[in-house]
């Protein structure tokens, strides 16, 4: 992903600072509306960076996750006025106004916080991320590599999982219509081949890295990580804006 927008040109750490600023503000705000606008601002950044379309599937996934989170929590809060009951006349599935607000907050907060991650990943080549972490933050190279490699393997695993599902379905394996315990056990034919292949892959990767002298001595990198004027500008405005917004909202 060559530099398509200013977001691509920024130092990876600058984007991490932005991400942390969003997280901080998400915790500072205690009202749904400001958090909603915070989330909107994250999406706006993605739009300006020309990656909104690219990250849309990830955002959709996060929304589903937030919705599940919401549903799990909303029935557990007893305080406040009851606004809705799943089974009328009983206490089952009762939703209160306090619960509704708290859970909306929680879901939105989670959305705002996690939405920065796809933006970060879509605009930063993994290699740059490693270099930035190792050079600027003095993270040991092996840890940085582990993190980036595991992120890198997610799409590969997804592809592999779909092949495994197809292979088992071709043997008349049925995924639908069972009770919860059976459905959980039914994951074994899918999870096991995937796990075994991943272990195999990790071993192959370790060997191929060692044959190319991984860990033999101090590493150098072709491109070094630098902070440009733009980075300094973005970082300082992120910090300033966060501080101002935090102070305003706490008063």
């Amino acid at each position, binding site marked *: 992903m060559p530099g398509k927008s200013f977001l691509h040109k920024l130092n990876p750490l600058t984007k991490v600072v932005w991400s942390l600023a969003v997280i901080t503000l998400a915790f500072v705000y205690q009202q749904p509306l400001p958090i909603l606008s915070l989330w909107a601002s994250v999406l706006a950044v993605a739009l300006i960076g020309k990656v909104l379309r690219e990250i849309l599937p990830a955002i959709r996934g996060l929304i589903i996750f937030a919705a599940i989170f919401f549903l799990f929590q909303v029935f557990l809060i007893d305080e406040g006025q009851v606004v809705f009951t799943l089974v009328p006349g009983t206490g089952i599935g009762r939703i209160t106004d306090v619960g509704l607000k708290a859970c909306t907050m929680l879901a939105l907060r989670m959305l705002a916080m996690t939405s920065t991650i796809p933006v970060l990943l879509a605009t930063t080549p993994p290699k740059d991320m490693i270099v930035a972490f190792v050079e600027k933050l003095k993270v040991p190279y092996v840890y940085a590599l582990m993190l980036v490699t595991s992120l890198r393997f997610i799409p590969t695993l997804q592809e592999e999982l779909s092949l495994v599902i197809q292979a088992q379905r*071709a*043997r*008349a*394996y049925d995924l639908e219509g069972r009770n919860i315990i059976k459905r959980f056990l039914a994951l074994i034919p899918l999870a096991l081949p995937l796990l075994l292949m991943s272990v195999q892959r990790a071993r192959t990767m370790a060997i191929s890295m060692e044959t190319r002298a991984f860990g033999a001595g101090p590493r150098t990198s072709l491109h070094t990580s630098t902070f440009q004027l733009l980075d300094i500008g973005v970082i300082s405005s992120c910090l300033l804006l966060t501080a101002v917004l935090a102070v305003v909202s706490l008063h």
Partner: protein
Amino acid sequence: MIRAENIHFTYPNGFQALKGLSFHIKAGEFVAVIGQNGAGKTTLLKLLNGLLKPTAGRILIGGLDTARARVAELARKVGFLFQNPDHQIFLPTVREELAFGPKNLGLKGAVLEDRVKDAAAAVGLTPYLDFNPRQLSKGQRQRVALASVLAMQPEVLVLDEPTTGQDYREALEIMRLVKKLHQQGHTVLLVSHDMEMVARFAGRALVLGEGQLLLDGPVATVFAREDVLAATGLVPPQVIQLARPYQEQGLLRPVLTVEELYAEIIAALRGEVDARQVLPA
């Protein structure tokens, strides 16, 4: 047995993998599907067992419309062998692995055991029934996968590059097994990049290029159309290329394999087939 009527398939990302294919495969045929990577071969196979449903047109397997039937239902009729056996093997013994498919079909007891035994015998794995499939060689694992499909006794066998990543001997063994199964009455559909294997074993070939059916006919006829094959990045087996000039001069009859060419040359040189004993082998 298999009838495809003007099938189209477009992936959710907008990639048009198949653009209007029609063909008919009779029961008992051995058909090879060839074409360069991305020509739509694997997509076509996945449409046959209902893993994918055509976006337009329809496929009938023994009268069953794949768009309406469930994959589990189609699995009875169409056995699918994938490129990589490791995508499906997950049980601790070969015996249990072979029983997985028939169990899903609801078989149990003596019938199930018979199925497992027959399938293991068909691929020569009887001595390995209690082994852990993960400890077998790649070629053996591929035979485990094949047997696990056979145990479901499908009428049609669909094989997606069953010989990749194996040495010549292992690949030949798999293909000989497939040939034996074909002779026992299975309809076979094979995707392969190995043109020698296609020439040696298949009766008919479908050539795909960019989602379209470029050629459909007996293997000998298909391999004679070098111009069309070149368009989809295929080259006929060397032995066919070698024999072509002589064939065009009327010196040799059409051949598909090295053995056939050898027999033809001997006959042409000496005017009699038995002459091979005179020449050093």
